Structures are given as structure tokens and as C-alpha cells.
């Protein structure tokens, strides 16, 4: 009896507490006073060693010149993904002022959470972003026309190949035929049937929402001349071009040129795959260990490299609404993306600052490092993930249908794309 009484009391108390907790939560958002406030700020940097090295030097330079507005930098805390950690920090109200690794796909969600400061709030915000990045900046505008992220750096993805393995497969390593789907399939066949490598190429076949950015999307961007997955709140991929790309990958998996099981290390570095879809970071990573070459992603008709688009794999900088000294944060953001710091970033990491015509902005660098020139040229033709509501849910639904039809061949490609398009139309329009 007493036990029952206690249980009832406990449950009642729990429900009362929960109701009280859920009823609260309204308040102000800082407004224009916050955007002019100055003081010490915290920033988060990506945890890759090259970016950390650049970030720490940048912070040191800022702090030397601005001792009254000290910046404290740290790596993004460990979590299953950066986006989860940032999302949790927004909810908890302890997000830093700036995160130099904000994924564009996560921006709509952070924005919905009220976690981001529109950079247009600063008098020179819009002008600064558009003059630095040029026309490509508009891809990063939110549906309300505001910039909640500063386009920072791109890693335009291309096909990296291992010349030694191609030679072993009887393919011309200096000029491998990879520009059309037929050529790519033929080269892949030679690689696998000769035993030069277990797979011609090994994109991750797993079901994380972002994996399509490194198999379907680059080829789709190329095939369509730069169309995003969703435009005007409608899916674009249920089209002849979308089907051509999906059919190409379906053939790669069906013939065993691409593997259906995830490789737990780096298949390209381990010589298990002769090709990989990568950004310019790969030069620093594979430069000394693999005899590599680079080509644009293939298209059905073999579009010329100078006209080929790809996925940008950009990482941006966003300002978070928990920031008290937003005036300082904006100045730090401009400092960190200035021509000088962008040059330092390029030098340190090999990643392309999202500046208009990056190749001509840093001629000395590209003269000294000609291998980066191809990626710099490609950087001018990149496509970003669409900035739409429910962005991650859209990519997950797309991935699920793609995986079912293309990787595992359980359904046909046409109906999978139609099904995904239906779901995406419903989500993007919400």
C-alpha cells in the first residue's frame, strides 16, 4: 500500500516537473546590442592536425594585435559527429562564438534551433561574404535570403587514381580513360579482372546520410552541369541525368567494381582500391605514399574537364547565438578569412579558400605546388548541398532508397528515385 502511494507520488512529481520544464523557455535573443559587443570569445576548430596548426597560428596573431579581445581556441569536443556536438551545445546554451567547421547541411537545423546569428546583422556582413566568395556565395543563402554561414573553404572532389595499380592492370597510367561512364566501367573491369586491386573504387557503401555526397552527388553535379539535389523545394534527381548516374553506380556494384561492404581503413592507401573520390586534402595525405594522378568525375558523354562540375564538400564558419561578444566574433571571422589568412590556410592544409578565382589570388602558391592547380580550377565549378529545411532528413531518405536500389539491387533504380523524390518533395516544402 505504502509502496503504491510512493510510486504514485513519484510519478506525479515527475510529471509535474516535466510539465514545468516544458512550459518555460521563452526569452530574448540579444539583438543589435550583442552584435556590437566586444570582449573575449571562444572558438572551435576542426580536429585535423593541419587545420589546428593553422587555427592556432591565426588565434595567436589575433591575440597579439587585440589583447583586450582575447580568442580562446579549442578542438570541437569529441562526439559521434561534429554536428551532434554543436547541436547539443546550442540546446545547452554553451556553443562557442564561432565554429570553423560548420557543415552546410546542418545549417538549416541549427538555424531552426535559433542557434545561429545571421551575418547580415552586421553592417558589412552581406557585402563582405559576397565580395569574398562571388556568385557562389548565393548557394549558402538560407531560404529567408540571409547568410547564417560564411562560405569558408571547399574541397572539390575529383577522382584520384593510383598510377602503379593502373599500370599493373594494363591501363595507361598517365592518361587513363575515365571521362565517360563506358570508359570508367572498362577501366574498372581491367583493374578488378587483372587482380591489380580488389575494387576499382570503394566509396563507403554504408547508410549514413552524408555518404551520397561522395558517390552519387559529384557525378550528378557533373552530369547536370551544376544542379543541386533540390531546387525550388522540389527534388531534381528523378530525371534522365539522375537515372544515368544511379544506373552507372548500380553497374559498378553489380559487376563488383565497387564493394558492397564498408572498408574499415583507407582502401586507397592500402591498395585495395585503385581509385578514390577525394578533395585536395588527399595530396597531403597520399602524396608521398601513392604514385597518384587526378581526373574529373566521369559523365555519360565525357564533358570536358573545364566544364565539369562536382560537389564542393565545403566547410563553413557560423556564428552562434550564445555568443556574448558578437562584435569581436565578427571581426575575428573577417580576420580569419582575410586574404592573408586564407593564404596561410591554403599553405598549411591545401584546402581551397572559397574566394573568387582562388588560383589567381595565390599565384605563388600554385606555381610552387602545381599539383593543386587542378583542384583550384575545379573549385570554380562546385555544387553545394541545398540549403533547405529538413536537409539531413532529405539526405537520409535519399540514401536509404539509393542504397536499396543502387548498392544492394533490391529494387529498381527508377522506382527508388521516384520514391525518394516523393519523400523529398514533402520534406523540402514544409
Amino acid at each position, binding site marked *: 500500500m505504502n509502496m503504491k502511494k510512493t510510486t504514485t507520488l513519484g510519478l506525479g512529481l515527475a510529471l509535474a516537473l516535466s510539465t514545468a520544464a516544458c512550459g518555460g523557455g521563452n*526569452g530574448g535573443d540579444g539583438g543589435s546590442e550583442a552584435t556590437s559587443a566586444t570582449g573575449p570569445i571562444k572558438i572551435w576548430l576542426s580536429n585535423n592536425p593541419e587545420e589546428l596548426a593553422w587555427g592556432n597560428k591565426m588565434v595567436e596573431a589575433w591575440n597579439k594585435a587585440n589583447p583586450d579581445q582575447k580568442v580562446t581556441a579549442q578542438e570541437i569536443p569529441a562526439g559521434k*559527429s561534429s554536428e551532434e556536438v554543436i547541436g547539443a551545445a546550442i*540546446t545547452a546554451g554553451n556553443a562557442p562564438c564561432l565554429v570553423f567547421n560548420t557543415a552546410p547541411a546542418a545549417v538549416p537545423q541549427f538555424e531552426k534551433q535559433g542557434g545561429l546569428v545571421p551575418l547580415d546583422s552586421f553592417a558589412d556582413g552581406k557585402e563582405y561574404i559576397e565580395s569574398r566568395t562571388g556568385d557562389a556565395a548565393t548557394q549558402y543563402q538560407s531560404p529567408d535570403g540571409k547568410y547564417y554561414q560564411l562560405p569558408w573553404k571547399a574541397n572539390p572532389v575529383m577522382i584520384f587514381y593510383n598510377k602503379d595499380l593502373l599500370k599493373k592492370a594494363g591501363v595507361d597510367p598517365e592518361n587513363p580513360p575515365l571521362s565517360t561512364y563506358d570508359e570508367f566501367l572498362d577501366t574498372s573491369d581491367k583493374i578488378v579482372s587483372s587482380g591489380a586491386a580488389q575494387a576499382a573504387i570503394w566509396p563507403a*557503401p554504408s547508410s549514413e546520410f552524408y555518404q551520397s555526397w561522395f558517390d552519387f552527388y559529384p557525378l550528378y553535379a557533373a552530369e547536370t552541369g551544376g544542379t543541386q539535389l533540390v531546387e525550388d523545394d522540389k527534388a531534381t534527381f528523378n530525371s534522365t541525368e539522375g537515372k544515368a548516374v544511379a544506373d552507372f553506380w548500380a553497374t559498378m556494384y553489380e559487376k563488383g567494381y565497387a564493394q558492397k*561492404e564498408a572498408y*574499415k581503413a583507407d582502401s586507397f592507401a592500402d591498395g585495395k582500391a585503385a581509385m578514390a573520390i577525394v578533395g585536395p586534402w588527399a595530396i597531403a595525405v597520399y602524396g608521398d605514399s601513392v604514385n597518384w594522378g587526378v581526373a574529373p568525375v566521369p559523365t555519360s558523354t565525357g564533358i570536358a574537364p573545364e566544364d565539369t562540375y562536382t560537389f564542393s564538400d565545403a566547410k563553413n564558419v557560423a556564428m552562434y547565438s550564445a555568443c556574448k561578444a558578437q562584435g569581436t566574433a565578427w571581426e575575428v571571422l573577417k580576420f580569419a578569412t582575410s586574404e592573408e589568412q586564407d593564404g596561410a590556410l591554403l599553405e598549411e592544409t591545401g584546402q581551397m579558400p572559397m574566394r573568387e578565382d582562388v588560383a589567381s589570388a595565390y599565384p605563388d602558391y600554385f606555381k610552387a605546388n602545381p599539383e593543386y592547380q587542378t583542384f583550384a580550377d575545379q573549385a570554380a565549378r562546385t555544387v553545394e548541398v541545398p540549403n533547405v529545411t529538413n536537409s539531413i532528413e532529405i539526405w537520409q531518405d535519399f540514401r*536509404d532508397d539509393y542504397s*536499396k536500389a543502387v548498392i544492394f539491387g533490391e529494387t529498381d533504380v527508377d522506382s527508388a528515385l521516384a520514391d525518394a523524390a516523393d519523400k523529398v518533395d514533402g520534406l523540402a516544402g514544409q
Partner: protein
Amino acid sequence: MLTTVLGRQPLGLAFAAPYAVFLVLIFAYPVGLAVWISFHDYFFTAPGVAVDRPFVGLDNYTAVLGDPEVHKAFLNVAVFLVINVPLTVVLSLVLATALNGAVRGRIFFRVCYFVPYISASVAVVAVWLFLFSNGGFVNQLLGPLAPDPSWLINKGLAMPLIALFVTWKQLGFFILLYLAALQNVGKELYESAAMDGAGKLGSFMNITVPGVRPATTLVVILSIITGANLFTEPYLLTNGGGPNGASASPVLLMYQRGIEQGNPDTAAAIGVLLMIAFLIIAFVNKRFLERD
């Protein structure tokens, strides 16, 4: 009056209070909040952001119950339970009985069974990946008999493999529970049975099994709870519930919907349904196992 409110031993309340507060804050409050969230159009926001979170009745539940991915995840867990629970009970009881006897190297075996339990899942999963990946040790042993598609990308084998993995990983803990329970089974019962002509199997079935029934109830309930919480294995071993959701669990879906995709309302609805389903299963099991 005071006695009616505080009971005959008011000091007892003071002793019980810290745990009661802990239970309310860490368990009851989140459960209450999850139930509340599941009936509202809810998403996480920064502190101080004013948003409308209207009551939506059963909308989240309707959406979840009509979602084929959710059906699949619950079915996957059912497959998991059908394999994992009986296997756990049988193996841990048999091994505990064996280890309770005079076996050479008893401590060595006890350590062997217990090490997987205390090892981090991430590390142990890496070993299983080495064993069961396409070019892994098991397939090399099996040669032409290796399944095609391979274990981890085979929709018929992925979930049974996870069930086996969890059984193996948790076995040490359940053996320990049974070993403790076996200490309470009187030796004289075995002696009497032996005098009556019972063999080893007869003693096991008629003395050991009924003698450790309370422990079996606990093992079954804990195994069921493990199944309800299944996340790490589909997340790591089969790369997010693959292939095509064949090893996705409800908790993995909650993570994807609630955390990755920013829909904690539907995630909470899945959680509440999961909790109800597993309370019913656990209750039925308890009644069944304690029927006498």
C-alpha cells in the same frame, strides 16, 4: 496526523530520500519529458528562443506506427530477442554449472568469459569485423561455403550475427549471476538425487534449473533490456543498421530521428512505444517464469 504523512519511521524517509531524488531526476523526469515531447510538435532550441510547441495529440504516434522503417526496426529486435534470450539463458547456465564444478583451469575460463563483458564495445566490434568481414577470418575458413553476400551485408544474417555478438559479449556477466545463484542450491539435493539414481542430466534438469529460477528471471529480463537498448552493435558492426535497415534497432532510429535529423518528437514516440512493448514482454516473462 504527522504519523499518517511521514509514517511510523520518519527517519527512513531521510535515508531513502537521496535515492528517490536521484530516481526522479535521472529516470522519472526524463521519462515524463519524453512522454510530453511525444505528444507535441517539438524540436530542440537554444535557451531563450521562443517557439510554439503545439499539442498534436497522437500525430507523432500515427506517423511512427505508419513508418515501414519503424516496423522493420521492431521486427529486427524481435529477431534479436528470439536468438539472444534463449541462447543467453542456456549458455550461461550450462557454462556456470560447468565452472561451478571442479574443472581444471576454472579461473582461466572464468576470466576468458568475463573479458568480453568488460571490454569496450568499440574494441570488441573491431575484432568481430576482422572475423566476419568479406575477406575476414571466418570466410577464409569457410572458403566456398562462405555466405554470399557476406555476413555483415547479408540481410538474413546481419541481425542474427549481432544477436550472437551480444550473447557472447554479455555471457560473462550472466555466468556470474548464475554462479552466485548456484551457491544457494544445496549440495544435499544433488546427493539425494544421486542416491535415487539420477544422472548428471537429471540432476541438472530437476535440481539446478528450478534451483536458479529467480536468477533465470533476472537474466531473461536483463537480456530483454539489452535488446531494447540495442544501439552500438548496429551502429558500428553493420554501419548504421545495414544492409538497408536489416539490422536497424528502434534506439538507432531514435538517434537518427531525434539527434541527427532534429525530430525529437517522433523519436520520443518511438521511445515510448519501445518502453511499453518491453514492459509488456518483461511482465509476461516474469509471470511465466515465476508461475509457481
